[in-house]
């Protein structure tokens, strides 16, 4: 490996955005046949580094080296020409075009006279999806795909390029176990073929599972590059954060009070059916299940984003009329939504305005809004959540992914809700902040907040929840108390292999393929989970 130069490398690269120095003297070498991990907290500069390699940004100083020779990428096109494929952190799809067109945009299979060969286009897409083990229709438009499915399409797009270098910026953040396992299989195949891979994730176990070498960044500065063999998770965290980290999942003992959120027989035809549960004050209830089981949709309906066809939602003693987030909010509900770029934030708005948007009424002094109150409140929350930012008047669009998520949290926590529904609370959030968010949730629960947490991160579900509700194909299939919740019980319910925990005997009948598919997948991927039992467990997540 050492005779030939690295396929792609960065040498002493600096990149600044105005006053923010996103990268300072960072070097990185990507070797063929190796999967390289990039670790760092939110805002450490990982995505900036990726975009520099991809030709989106040009380094202010330093060089990009291709096969040992300096190159200048004048745009993403140049990098693609050089054989660099990138999965960006935020999906970059064309909503109006079909999934197949999205994947092959600019590289469509051609027939005579340079026309697009639609048959081949469809067939090749189908092949890719088969390789990734997902059931997506190549012809459907990308609009309306869930975040997870969007991520899948991005992955398909990148691997279809047959590139020499594959860069993956948090590709797994939205995925559940099965898809992650498939992705890893594909990545290892590429590795065997001699490609160089760069992998970013905030789930450390994934890094240990997949990669051989890791480079750590902190606040835009290069910290270290070392082999993962012999490194422990604590070592890695130490390098990322610069200090020892406290325990993850700091679950507080709380006194659980009266039910605050009562959902009964909620049904939205074609989406979810007959969902009933309660969340009591001081309690954290996790809503687990596979991607696409209808968890987010339930949350949306409760909060009034979507209407429901039957059933009712009560907050405290008030029965919500449905279909109005405004009334839901005044009843004390808050929803941290799934898609922060579309639903959580006004991307071109400033940090302070985004945080203030949910409490316009309480910011008023007389008829007009007090800038001071607005700014003070935003500053309070920014400190409380350790937001990394330049000015409060900066637009949130330029914050790193994890910091954006914190702004969304601040925006909702500052409404002082009595029930907090939180959809993937720590997606894209680094380990340090993750434990902060968990501590915060625990504390809030301790103060009597009722929390309904949707999460695809099993350790998080098991670590945080007093009770786990599991959904499968639009139905609630299990309710598991904390002391009985294990990876096995939750995954079994999530894949439809429900046993005695079945809620009030509503045995879910229609699970045709999902269960069997999941077992099959596990068998196939049995080898990969050898190093990390957790990820093997995850691999059971079947796609319905």
């Amino acid at each position, binding site marked *: 490996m050492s005779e030939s130069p690295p396929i792609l490398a960065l040498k002493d690269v600096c990149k600044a955005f105005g006053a923010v120095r996103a990268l300072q003297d960072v070097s990185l070498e990507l070797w063929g046949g190796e999967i390289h991990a990039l670790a760092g907290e939110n805002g450490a500069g990982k995505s900036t580094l990726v975009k520099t390699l991809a030709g989106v940004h040009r380094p202010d100083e330093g060089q990009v080296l291709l096969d040992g020779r300096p190159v200048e990428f004048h745009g993403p096109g140049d990098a693609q020409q050089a054989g660099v494929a990138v999965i960006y952190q935020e999906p970059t799809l064309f909503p109006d075009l079909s999934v197949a067109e999205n994947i092959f945009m600019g590289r469509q299979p051609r027939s005579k006279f340079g026309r697009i060969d639609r048959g081949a286009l469809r067939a090749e897409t189908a092949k890719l999806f088969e390789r990734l083990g997902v059931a997506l229709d190549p012809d459907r438009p990308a609009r309306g795909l869930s975040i997870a499915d969007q991520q899948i399409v991005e992955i398909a797009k990148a691997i279809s390029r047959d590139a020499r270098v594959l860069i993956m910026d948090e590709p797994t953040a939205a995925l559940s176990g099965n898809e992650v396992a498939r992705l890893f299989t594909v990545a290892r195949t590429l590795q065997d073929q001699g490609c160089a891979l760069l992998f970013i994730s905030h789930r450390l176990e994934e890094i240990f599972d997949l990669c051989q070498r890791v480079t750590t960044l902190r606040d835009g500065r290069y910290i270290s590059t070392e082999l993962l063999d012999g490194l422990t998770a604590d070592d890695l965290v130490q390098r990322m954060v610069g200090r020892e980290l406290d325990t993850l999942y700091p679950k507080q003992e709380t006194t659980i009070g009266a039910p605050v959120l009562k959902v009964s027989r909620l049904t939205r035809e074609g989406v979810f059916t007959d969902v009933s549960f309660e969340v009591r004050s001081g309690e954290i209830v996790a809503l687990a299940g596979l991607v696409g089981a209808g968890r987010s949709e339930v949350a949306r309906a409760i909060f009034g984003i979507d209407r429901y066809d039957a059933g009712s939602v009560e907050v405290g003693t008030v029965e919500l009329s449905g279909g109005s987030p405004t009334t839901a909010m005044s009843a004390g509900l808050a929803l941290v939504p799934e898609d922060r770029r579309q639903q959580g*934030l006004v*991307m*071109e708005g400033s940090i302070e305005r985004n945080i203030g948007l949910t409490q316009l009424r309480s910011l*008023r002094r007389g*008829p007009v809004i007090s800038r001071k109150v607005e700014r003070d409140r935003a500053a309070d929350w920014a400190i409380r959540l*350790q937001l990394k930012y330049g000015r*409060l008047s900066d637009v949130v669009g330029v914050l790193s992914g994890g910091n954006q998520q914190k702004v969304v949290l601040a*925006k909702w926590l500052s409404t002082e809700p009595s029930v907090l529904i939180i959809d993937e609370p720590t997606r894209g959030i680094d380990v*340090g902040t993750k434990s902060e968010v968990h501590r915060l949730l625990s504390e809030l629960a301790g103060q009597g907040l009722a929390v309904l947490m949707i999460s695809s991160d099993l350790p998080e579900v098991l670590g945080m929840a007093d009770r786990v509700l599991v959904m499968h194909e639009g139905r609630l299939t299990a309710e598991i108390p904390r002391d009985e919740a294990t990876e096995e019980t939750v995954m079994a319910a999530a894949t439809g292999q429900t046993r005695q925990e079945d809620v009030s005997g509503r045995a879910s009948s229609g699970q045709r393929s999902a269960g069997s598919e999941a077992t099959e997948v596990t068998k196939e991927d049995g080898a990969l989970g050898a190093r990390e039992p957790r990820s093997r467990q995850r691999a059971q997540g079947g796609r319905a």
Partner: protein
Amino acid sequence: MAPEAPAKASAVRPRVEAPRPLTRFVRWDVIVTALLIVVFLGGAFGTSDFATSDNLSFALDDLSEIALIALPMTLLVVAAEVDLSVASILGLCSALFGALWDAGWAIQMIIPFILVVGVVAGLINGLLVTRLGLPSLAVTIGTMTLYRGLAYVVLGTKAVAEFPQNYADLATKTVPGTPIPYPFALFILLAIVTAIVLHATGLGRSLFAIGAQEEAAFFAGIRVKRIKLLLFVVSGLVSAFAGAVYTLRYGSARADNGLGLELAVIASVLLGGVDFDGGKGTLGGVIAGVLLIGLLRNLLMLRDVATEIQSIVTGLLLIVSVLTPRIAALVRQARRHPRGATPSASS
């Protein structure tokens, strides 16, 4: 729950509001205001008839309808909607004004009546947009034709004139002691109200959020549909009122009154730096834009420049006003990255 993570506290960058001289001042609305001052001074020194109070009050009076309608239009465009039917509502109300006057109605009956018509017209626009989720551009192109057509139905091609002098005076005379005509005085009042609403109230914040990211605004509990409906109704109401002003000012009610005015209004709003895609803009910029177009036209007229040239100047003005900040930005970028600029992700 005091935050206790000293290791990371240092990472939080200080909130210093560093002055950013160049970027601050190469803003769109600032440029338009500067241009306005240049035009005014140029006019005052170059053309003797320009800076007289008679001429200025004439110029302002001439702007009344455009200025009035520009206010609700600004709110709409900030919320990423548009109302192209304003000029037709103006025409319809003007026609009704004439027809009802012909039929012997008293003016104090006619005006409330046409205001109600304006509200209904706005309500139709708003309901089509909010209930059916149709793009407002499409809806208001349709209602533009519809309302203008109705104006012809009401009045045909005839013109009604001879309205009572005291009302005509209201539309043309100035507030005693100032060169400001009554309609324009009303505009100033409404502009202040609109500026406060847009820039200092929750409703204003909501408008910007809706314009920038409607879905996120909805998720934040903002009553998006209700607010949009309200905007269209206000737009209809103000256009109807402008119809009354127009009729009295010219002393003539015709079905084709204000034909093509919608583009002039939109031109002033865009000239004022409001982003047609929503979410950005200031009312100050719009006022400067309205005045700039108005004064420039007046100046060209005084200098006997053909109306065709006026149209060219208006067009060039629009282009220059959007081009200048872009070129300034490009120059800045080129200076910072001599080897070639990195396109910023946010552009």
